[in-house]
């Protein structure tokens, strides 16, 4: 049993939450207007086309903003941890809320380069951000 509350999988979100099994970050993409839709929906929010399908995108991006959470909201919650909003390099108009893992929380800053990795919990592969060392 995962310590995290996991998403309930459905036809719209399954690709996003399970793509990590193959190491792929899958975002809903419109085949007509070439834009991305997130959270995933069965229709494009820009051109109303139903020609939308999950597409693997580059896993690199930048910390748009973040916070270090200090409050243990549940028993057994390990604090502090970093919550960040990541903007992906090739996916304008989409933000991913995630944790920045693999570093001390105090090291994270806006503008940090990150790469999305995956953390498996049961049948779900949570996209997580990891800082890319040496890059600015």
């Amino acid at each position, binding site marked *: 049993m995962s310590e995290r*509350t996991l998403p309930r999988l459905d036809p719209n979100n399954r690709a996003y939450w399970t793509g990590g099994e193959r190491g792929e970050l899958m975002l809903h993409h419109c085949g007509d207007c070439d834009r991305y839709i997130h*959270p995933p929906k069965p229709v494009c929010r820009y051109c109303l086309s139903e020609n939308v399908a999950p597409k693997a995108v580059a896993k690199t991006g930048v910390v748009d*903003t973040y916070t270090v*959470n200090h409050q243990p909201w549940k028993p057994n919650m390990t604090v502090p941890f970093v*919550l960040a909003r990541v903007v992906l390099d090739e996916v304008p108009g989409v933000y991913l809320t*995630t944790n920045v893992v693999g570093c001390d929380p105090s090291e994270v800053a806006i503008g940090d380069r990150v790469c999305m990795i995956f953390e498996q919990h049961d049948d779900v592969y949570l996209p997580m951000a990891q800082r890319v060392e040496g890059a600015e």
Partner: protein
Amino acid sequence: MTREAYVTGVGMSEIGVGLERHPLLLTTDAVKEALANAGLTIEQIDGVATYPGMSHGYPGFSPVGADDLIDTLGIKAKWYCGGGELTSQLGAVVEAALAVKAGLARHIICYRTVYEAAAMKRPDEYPMARSPRASGYNQFFAPYNAVSAVNWVAQYAMRHVHRYGLTREQLAQIALTGRANGCLNPRALVQKPLSMDEYLSARMISEPLCLFDCDRYSDASTVLIVSAGDALGDVTATPIRIASMAGSVNRHSWDQAEWMASYDTGPDLWTHTDYGPKDVDTVQLYDGFSFLTLTWLEALGFCDIGEGGRFIEGGQRIARDGELPLNTFGGQISAGRLHGFGFAHEAVVQLRGDAGERQIANSPKVAVAASGGGPLATALLLAND
């Protein structure tokens, strides 16, 4: 011929933490006070509006639905609404104003009842609905333990720190001002001033927001009676005109919005009125988290975007005797989490000169009350004209 909408009565229950009094009775307390305040009787009420309606999502979040109140108080309603899919809490007042303007009702009870503190104290009575997995927008937050709105607001605040140089000392003025004002509000939950040292040494909740940047769960009910312009003959109190209203939602998912909805709603408010920011005598702006208040000051045009921190620096400008008195009842940070309605309540009280010890000087004529944060925003311009 356009009918005007007015707030003709305001009422509030006691504000407490872990109250034993039933939420329906707290609501009744506030209704009775508002009726007496307006000079109306319950028989003259023909509409009810509330946000967010009966809700079981979070314990105590909204334990009194409009159906329940109408039945309980024997109201014969020609129009009512209770729903959470509105442009935030004061969206219910907007709905009511539209209804009286359209002639669908004459006098509408608008209310917000919260019972979150009691629900936390008595989880057996108010159990948390547990679902093993998250769905809806929560599926994108819960797995990352972004479980509180403070986590979402903090990220916007951090962006302000980074882009515009917002400092903790500047942001502190929202909490310090609220707490100073709460000392003069006999109903306020916390009636004790807060010092800068206390603020700066408080524990962090979600950086850059500390404990004192957050409001506090409370148990209370707040009522506004909204009346049609052609029904003012029924009322004995000074009617306060709803001079303008605006609201917005774009991306309901908190993390997909580039800017909070207040930045759309603020400018919109001024497009429906001849008044402008310079005419405003006091502002009552949502402070569920202090940073939201700062965004409202920018969004409404009291200062430029990014200048909010410098605008409130030192606190003199937003003090009760300053040029733009803010949250004169203490805000939710001091008075308790009334969830949006307290701001409109206080605007009416100040515009009528009824605020007692905390009354601001020079007979204020125009006030803004705003609710919401993140993807939702509602603003009301209220005038004693």
